[in-house]
């Protein structure tokens, strides 16, 4: 229980339900909250609805905003009116970086967001350079976005989000299809970003390292939510929901 003034949660999802256009339910009443500055992992088997859930967090879904108020960002429900504001606040990193790279050069792509926020001229250039430096791609402004490696592309997309100074970062499988070095670099990069983070992933080792809390999703419902080590270390729970205990927790000494 918090003492004093109750802080507004960065993201709050209340009983979110969603079905695809052919009627198949994807989410059946999902509820959880993420406090500002927290890093929460969203785990579950394939088809659990993780990606669908993430698309609701910045208003991409439902396609026609229904004003049901199921998702709240910093206390305000997502409605048709504040849709664009929400997208500025909550930055979504898609699983496939190629889906997200819109511009021919790296510099232009990172500038895409801030330009919409009204930045221009030298200020824009500085913001882009700073964002690229944060992700370890300093000087890449003139490079062609489409000839980079997958890991580099993903970092360009992340730079694009950082350049908009999004308060909440939502990441869909950020380490998928990366080689071990790419994975390590991305993990340490994510650890260094102070924004509120929600990470949907199969990479349970990363969840243990980065996320203080975890939400387990299966068949469109939250089956468990709580401390990472406690939940991911529960072998029965993991196996029941198509996951397994991460190695880093298997070899923990009982006195750790």
């Amino acid at each position, binding site marked *: 229980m918090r003492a004093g003034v109750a802080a507004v949660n960065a993201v709050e999802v209340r009983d979110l339900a969603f079905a695809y256009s*052919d009627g198949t339910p994807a989410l059946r009443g999902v509820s959880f909250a993420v406090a500002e500055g927290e890093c929460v992992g969203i785990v579950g088997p394939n088809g659990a609805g993780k990606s669908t859930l993430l*698309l609701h967090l*910045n208003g*991409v879904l439902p396609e026609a905003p229904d004003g049901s108020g199921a998702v709240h960002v910093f206390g305000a429900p997502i409605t048709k009116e504040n849709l*664009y504001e929400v*997208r*500025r606040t909550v930055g*979504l990193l*898609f699983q*496939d970086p*190629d*889906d*997200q790279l*819109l511009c021919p050069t790296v510099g232009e792509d990172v500038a*895409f*967001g801030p330009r*919409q*926020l009204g930045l221009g001229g030298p200020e824009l250039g500085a913001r882009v350079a700073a964002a690229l430096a944060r992700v370890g791609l300093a000087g890449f402004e003139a490079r062609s976005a489409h000839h980079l490696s997958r890991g580099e592309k993903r970092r360009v997309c992340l730079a*694009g989000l950082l350049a908009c100074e999004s308060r909440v970062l939502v990441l869909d499988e950020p380490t998928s299809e990366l080689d071990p070095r790419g994975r390590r670099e991305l993990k340490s990069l994510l650890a260094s970003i102070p924004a509120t983070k929600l990470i949907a992933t199969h990479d349970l080792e990363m969840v243990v390292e980065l996320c203080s809390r975890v939400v387990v999703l299966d068949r469109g419902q939250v089956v468990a939510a709580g401390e990472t080590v406690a939940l991911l270390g529960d072998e029965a729970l993991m196996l029941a929901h198509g996951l397994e205990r991460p190695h880093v927790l298997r070899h923990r000494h009982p006195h750790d």
Partner: protein
Amino acid sequence: MRHGFLDRHSRLQSPIHALPAWSKALATLAVVVSMAVASPSWWPVLVVAAVLLAAVTWQSRIPAGFLLRRLLLVEPVVVIVATLALWQPGGRTLFAMLVARSTLSLAALILFVNTTRFSEVLDLLRRCRVPSLLLTVLALMYRCVFVLVDEAERLQRARVSRSFSPSAARSWRWVAFQAGQLFVRSSERAERIYAAMCARGWRP
């Protein structure tokens, strides 16, 4: 999305579905051709056709609501074009005829399409001596339609996600960019498909 994607009806089981594709194709063609030559004095034929189509719909287990919705989707176009006929002597009769003929032909085609699988259609075309290059391209196209629709949807969502204002969301430049990316991906996928086809023994 303009198209009713749901090819699912072609996989239903019914006496109509079980009929050979060539018979259904001939029947559809017969309906369409008779509609094309129908004149106002032929109205009994129209009524008979309507009754037959209703019977086939019932036997095929295709939901009547689905059929009606697909018909309604095209009706505006039909009505607009038919309206041009009104500026002629005898225009009103012609207007009614055009709408009736068009609707019945469309109903027949919808029934055909939803009771026949595309693979059967391709087989029929092959037997009609359609060139093999065209057949191969048709088969590949159909196979990849649903894949590309998914890709287009993901591109769209990513773009919408990065649009902070209505003007950015509506910008033609970015929609066209999406289309361009779709083509680039298609060509890359085509290379992979070529390799896969060769690996499975395809000879052009």
